[in-house]
């Protein structure tokens, strides 16, 4: 027959379940568990010892009280003295209290303590029973004490306590039954009856002790598991912290290695986080914990309001950053500040400031600017040589004897204007100062001489300073320019291309007529004709434009190939020319025109034109495809290593000359095409982009840099 589960469960105590449960076998966890259990049990027994010591004191006082209340005095006739029971309560109670107390002081929680406590408690029970004359009611003290013994959760303690009670009852039951049972002749097994009730109570208390201990072990195991997990996590955190420290140090090294100072500020303007060494060096102070307002000493910026707006991201941050100071002069240092947001996830947490020390650059730029100003003036002078020379004339005119005040003022004013026009601001200011002095001090010859002297000295100093470029003859009538030195000056100026006015002036200064520039080409043309026994008229130049030969130097040199080709292949010999009804002398006309961006240069001869059949046969010879159109066929002559000449001479025939011209033209985004009419001549049309003198100089400068 099967019992219902509810009845079966009656006999199935949790205690037995505890014993059956699986425990963790991890040695680390077992170690922590045992240590924790030991600690907790030690705390428990220490607390129990404390409770027992207090209990002993209370029981001691109670025993004295009941001894005095029940049997205060004993008499010998009329003589009275304290009853023996009172002395007994004091002595015994004291002894029973002293032992637990001393042991607690000496070794709280010691193993011996709990056994002594149990014995003492048992003896207290015996004494109370005795003092009350063996009242059966006072036996409840024994049962109450047993419950106290269970506080130790130690079965052995309970057993010792039970043994004490049983032995007490046995011994006193034999020799002094009245004191324990209240009757003089109890049954010889009466002690056993009392002991049996104690054992009955023990049954429950033992169960409670064992269960409590099991629960403590379970709690300790849970604690151990948590601690073990925690230790693993802590180890991870420790490793991660070490990694972060390493990263932090690495980051600090990086921060300290850059010249720029990086630092963050919160939205109250306080510097936060790591501050790089460069930062301290640039700002020349330790800014840790300081406010940006106090460090930058910038009173113009409303930092509080702007930082508040940045925090709210009220308007685009770039716009807000533009309102913050980007450059400042602090302790004679020029510092630039760049700003950036620092986000943590989506949240803007602080503001990044990047400080850069630009003092050296700034000083260099200032020096450079001064030079630029000076050089600009110089270039201006070169473009207006006569204006500059007139300045000397004006100074000379001031030296006329008995000159009138009005004339002086007029000349001085003219001179001031001329110098200002030439960007000689210092000298112009000098004239202005002289004018002021005349007004303030009144006109005098002495003052005039002083002014003349100052202005002359200023002009001479300027010429002296720039004597590498400017050369002025003794009479101060002719001014010469040293071109190479001028180029160096332009290279130094650098930014000259941004000054259009100056570029235009410089270009005008450098421009020459094509005819003047191509004199050498004309000579080469004529000499080639002589050599080939061909009679030629000088080249006819038709041009309204001017050109800067310096810019196109290499291109112009390459044109020699074209001219030689014209003479060698184009112009016929005089006899042939006459035979076909042409003038004996061959003609070459060079025409130059320009538009906004390009120059057009045309070489037109009256020779026999290009032999198309010869081109075709050469292409066939070289296994090259023959273009269909006439122009395409003609333009094959510009191909590298293509020549229609039958043999190579010192003048032409290698097929490199025209290709070289094409290559030079490409440098100026240019091109060359040829138009030819057989028997009438050829026309070479060149087109190339306009370059300013300054552009060319700067291009050379950048090429030099690239090469270096």
């Amino acid at each position: 027959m099967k019992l219902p589960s509810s009845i079966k469960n009656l006999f199935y105590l949790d205690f037995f379940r505890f014993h059956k449960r699986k425990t963790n076998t991890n040695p680390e966890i077992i170690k922590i568990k045992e240590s924790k259990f030991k600690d907790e049990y030690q705390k428990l027994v220490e607390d129990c010892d404390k409770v027992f010591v207090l209990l002993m004191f209370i029981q001691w006082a109670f025993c004295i009280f009941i001894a005095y209340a029940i049997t205060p005095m004993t008499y010998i006739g009329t003589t009275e003295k304290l009853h023996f029971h009172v002395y007994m309560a004091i002595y015994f109670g004291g002894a029973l209290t002293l032992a637990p107390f001393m042991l607690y002081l000496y070794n709280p929680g010691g193993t011996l303590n709990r056994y002594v406590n149990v014995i003492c408690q048992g003896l207290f029970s015996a004494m109370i029973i005795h003092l009350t004359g063996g009242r059966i009611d006072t036996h409840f003290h024994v049962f109450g004490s047993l419950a106290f013994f269970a506080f130790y959760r130690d079965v052995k303690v309970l057993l010792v306590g039970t043994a004490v009670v049983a032995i007490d009852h046995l011994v006193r039951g034999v020799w002094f039954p009245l004191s324990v049972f209240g009757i003089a002749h109890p049954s010889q097994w009466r002690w056993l009856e009392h002991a049996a009730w104690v054992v009955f109570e023990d049954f429950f208390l033992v169960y409670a002790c064992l269960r409590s201990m099991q629960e403590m072990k379970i709690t300790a195991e849970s604690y151990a598991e948590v601690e073990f997990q925690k230790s693993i996590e802590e180890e991870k955190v420790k490793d991660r912290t070490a990694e972060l420290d390493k990263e932090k140090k690495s980051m600090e090294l990086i921060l300290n290695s850059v010249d720029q100072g990086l630092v963050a500020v919160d939205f109250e303007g306080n510097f936060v986080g790591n501050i790089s060494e460069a930062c301290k060096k640039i700002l020349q102070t330790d800014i840790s914990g300081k406010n940006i307002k106090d460090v930058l000493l910038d009173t113009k910026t409303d930092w509080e309001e702007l930082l508040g707006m940045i925090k709210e991201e009220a308007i685009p941050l770039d716009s807000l950053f533009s309102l913050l100071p980007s450059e400042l002069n602090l302790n004679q240092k020029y510092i630039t500040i760049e700003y950036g947001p620092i986000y943590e996830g989506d949240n803007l947490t602080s503001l990044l400031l990047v400080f850069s020390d630009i003092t050296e650059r700034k000083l260099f730029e200032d020096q450079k600017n001064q030079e630029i100003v000076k050089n600009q003036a110089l270039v201006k002078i070169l473009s207006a040589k006569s204006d500059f020379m007139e300045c000397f004339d004006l100074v000379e005119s001031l030296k006329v004897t008995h000159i009138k005040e009005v004339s002086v003022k007029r000349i001085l004013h003219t001179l001031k204007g001329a110098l200002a026009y030439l960007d000689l601001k210092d000298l112009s200011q000098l004239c202005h100062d002289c004018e002021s002095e005349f007004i303030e001090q009144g006109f005098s010859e002495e003052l005039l001489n002083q002014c003349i002297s100052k202005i002359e000295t200023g002009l001479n100093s300027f010429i002296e300073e720039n004597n590498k470029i400017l050369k002025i003859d003794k009479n101060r009538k002719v001014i010469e320019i040293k071109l190479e030195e001028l180029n160096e000056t332009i290279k130094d100026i650098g930014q000259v291309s941004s000054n259009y006015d100056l570029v235009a002036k410089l270009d005008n200064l450098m421009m020459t007529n094509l005819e003047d520039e191509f004199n050498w080409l004309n000579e080469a043309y004529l000499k080639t004709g002589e050599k080939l026994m061909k009679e030629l008229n000088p080249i006819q130049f038709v041009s309204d434009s001017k050109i800067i030969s310096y810019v196109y130097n290499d291109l112009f040199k390459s044109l020699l190939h074209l001219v030689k080709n014209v003479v060698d292949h184009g112009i016929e010999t005089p006899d042939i020319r006459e035979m076909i009804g042409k003038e004996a002398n061959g003609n070459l006309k060079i025409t130059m025109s320009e538009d906004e961006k390009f120059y057009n240069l045309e070489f037109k001869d009256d020779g026999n034109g290009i032999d198309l059949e010869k081109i075709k046969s050469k292409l066939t010879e070289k296994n090259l495809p023959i273009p269909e159109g006439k122009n395409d066929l003609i333009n094959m002559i510009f191909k590298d290593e293509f020549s229609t000449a039958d043999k190579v001479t010192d003048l032409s025939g290698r097929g490199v000359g025209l290709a070289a011209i094409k290559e030079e033209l490409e440098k100026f985004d240019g091109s060359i095409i040829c138009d030819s009419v057989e028997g009438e001549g050829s026309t070479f049309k060149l087109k190339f982009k306009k370059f300013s003198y300054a552009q060319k100089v700067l291009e050379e400068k950048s090429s030099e840099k690239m090469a270096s």
Partner: protein
Amino acid sequence: MQIKVNKSVTTQFIFICIWSIGIISGLVITYEYSLGSGEKSQLKSSWPNESSLKFNPGKYNLVMFLHPECTCSKASLFHFKEILSEIKHDNLDSKIIFTMPKEKEKEWINSALVKEVKEAGSIQLIFDQSSEEFKRFDAKTSGQAFLFSPSKDLLFNGGITDSRGHIGYNQGEDFIINTLNKRGLASKDVDVFGCDNLNKTIVNK
């Protein structure tokens, strides 16, 4: 071989030994005190002739001498009253004599014991101011009881408790009840437990 001694355990052991000796000696003293009987009367045969106490002829006469302030005698009085309640006839005259020196009369006259005897009603209460009767009966210890036959023969001499102040079965009470109920004439001496009724000087005299 070097033996390691745990000082802590040794010290504790020594302490416990000394302490145990103290406890055991205390127990012995207690045992001796509690079971130590008082000085028993030397009255041997019959009612003292010189006694001024009135012997009730034809009845058993039960007399107990008490010290009014003896707490141990509370148990003796309890058993005295128990004897009276256990007797199945009225052939008994009972007296309790309290020692009541004049100098202590005011203090002792209303003691708990005196009051209890008064409240019992059926017991003849006598105060002995001169302690003469105590001397005549040689009742040195409080709780000293005597039982005389109707012919003045001493049947019982001793106490009616088995130890100091403890209520419970005792030979004295058992003997008296049996003797009275059976109207026997056997005699018995038992120990008596209680305070000294008389000053040592008086006793010596």
